[in-house]
């Protein structure tokens, strides 16, 4: 059950609900669509109170995860079905269907049945069915999750183009952070049916509000190290589990914290640096290399090195931290960012 949510989405904005399975992101979308009941509070769509309206009367269109194309209807009939139900004039229905087919480049598919279409084409029809309604907002429920990897990337770009062209309001649910980061104007991160953070993709990435957000956003994920914060000579020092000290500037009382740092802020250094670790696995990705290390105390850490990295498994490597990208998480999981 989703409780105590307050969210405003501006006209023309593409907002992504991001979260793991069971975080409530789809439920929240369905509440907007009218497919789940809202027991309390208000929902306003285009300035109109909508929480008591039936789904079809909320001026929103939804693209379902499994497309939900009516299998016995042609593409044209699928797209026209909603318009016929509101008794729109046939000429206007035809105009809208043709226009949507043109925008989505599927003029040749209009007389086909869904079973005669590929996954990507079905996805387009599902989007077309939403477009013809010319709604105040589009709702997408994990629309790319049934596509293969290549098609997913292509459709993602097409969706971004479509949004830029149509300037329409879109709410998009996904558990895929790449989709969220690439598509969103703002990301709403949900966890356990509550909002963890709302922000632009870079805000969420650079300044996560909590341990959950920091761990959920970013691939490879943020490194988390146990640290004891103390003050010395007016500076603050975070002592890691292997005894290494990391100086940082942060206004926090001394105590036990978790130190978070993204792999790209951990640099492999040729000279002695903040700490050392032993390379366990080296993943060559061409343009970059992921070095998975263990510190002396057994803590795992991932560093991002250049594409021509010479680190080999078993090497002892020096590691430096970009202290401007350090985060400390207190016992409640609240994030504090280094200055």
């Amino acid at each position, binding site marked *: 059950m989703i409780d105590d949510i307050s969210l405003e989405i501006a006209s023309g904005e593409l907002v992504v609900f991001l979260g793991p399975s069971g975080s409530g992101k789809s439920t929240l979308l369905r509440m907007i669509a009218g497919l789940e009941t809202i027991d309390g509070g208000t929902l306003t769509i285009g300035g109109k109170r909508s929480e008591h309206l039936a789904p*079809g009367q909320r001026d929103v269109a939804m693209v379902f995860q499994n497309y*939900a194309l*009516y299998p016995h209807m042609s593409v044209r009939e699928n797209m026209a079905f909603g318009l016929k139900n509101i008794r729109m004039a046939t000429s206007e229905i035809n105009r809208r269907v043709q226009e949507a087919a043109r925008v989505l480049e599927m003029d040749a598919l209009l007389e086909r049945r869904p079973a005669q279409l590929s996954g990507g084409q079905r996805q387009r029809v599902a989007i077309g069915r939403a477009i013809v309604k010319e709604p105040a907002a589009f709702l997408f429920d994990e629309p790319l999750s049934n596509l293969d990897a290549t098609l997913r990337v292509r459709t993602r770009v097409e969706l971004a183009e479509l949004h830029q062209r149509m300037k329409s309001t879109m709410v998009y649910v996904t558990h895929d952070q790449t989709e969220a980061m690439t598509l969103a104007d703002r990301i709403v991160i949900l966890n356990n049916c509550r909002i963890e953070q709302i922000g632009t993709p870079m805000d969420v990435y650079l300044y996560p509000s909590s341990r959950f957000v920091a761990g959920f956003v970013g691939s490879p994920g943020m490194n988390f190290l146990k640290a004891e914060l103390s003050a010395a000579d007016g500076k603050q020092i975070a002592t890691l589990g292997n005894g290494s000290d990391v100086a940082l500037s942060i206004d926090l009382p001394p105590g036990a914290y978790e130190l978070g740092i993204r792999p790209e802020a951990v640099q492999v250094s040729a000279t002695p640096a903040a700490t050392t670790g032993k390379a366990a696995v080296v993943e060559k990705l061409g343009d970059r290399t992921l070095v998975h290390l263990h510190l002396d105390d057994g803590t795992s850490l991932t560093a991002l090195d250049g594409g021509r990295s010479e680190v080999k498994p078993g090497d002892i490597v020096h590691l430096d931290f970009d202290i401007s990208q350090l985060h400390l998480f207190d016992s409640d999981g609240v994030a504090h960012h280094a200055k």
Partner: protein
Amino acid sequence: MTPTTVRRINWVGGVFTVLTVIIAVLWAFPIYWGIVSSLKPEDEVVRPYIELWPETLTFRHYWFALTQTQIGSWYINSVATSVGVTVLTVSTSLFAGYAISQLRFPGRTILWWLILASFMVPTQVLIINHFVLMANMSLLNSWAGIILPQLIHPVIIIVYKQFFDQVPKDFREAAAMDNASEWNVLFKIYIPMNWGVTTALSIVTFIWAWNAFLWPFLAVTRTEMMTITVGITQVYDAFGVYYAQQLAAAVLAGIPVALAYLLFQRKVTQAITLSAGIKG
């Protein structure tokens, strides 16, 4: 797969084939016997030994059934009542199945249990009540009187409910987003998506109704209002029962069902499997 396995499978397959053929012959023999007997003169039919082929081939009994009986009226009555039973049973069951599967209303579960429980009551138990009710409503010797008590087919409701249950809820939700009324959801989405089962159930209900004997036999006393299954019992004359004539009338009675089966073989098999799976 080793050669030994191949040999064993072929051997087992052969035994099954032979068994199947024997059972098919045993099952089909009475039909063959009925048709052949209807083509024999009456004195050949009652001979005390088996003759697999008529000594004298005659179509006299068919001519008799077609010209000397009211078989034309019986056909019309059978077609009218069977179509009536089929249309009304399938349409009411479709609504009931949809309501129980898709709508939420007070008493839904109780209604469902009542439908399931109605399996426990054999139609024959209700037949006296039906007779009294139809008599009180002055519907004996009428098509309505034959049709109405035959509309109770819980199995059709159950099959529909099961099929509607299997329609992914995304379609219902997509229809809700598309502003579809409940009526449109049923007629534009659920029924077209389940045309196969509607066709199959219609065919099997038609066959049940066509073959019905007990109720039409009780509900009709006037010869011209009889259905064909009841009518063929009337093929006799003052000198008694003539088996060949009765068999000729029976063959004529069975022709529409046989044709329906031949034309819609796959659908009939599907429907029988569906309903048998529930009837157990």
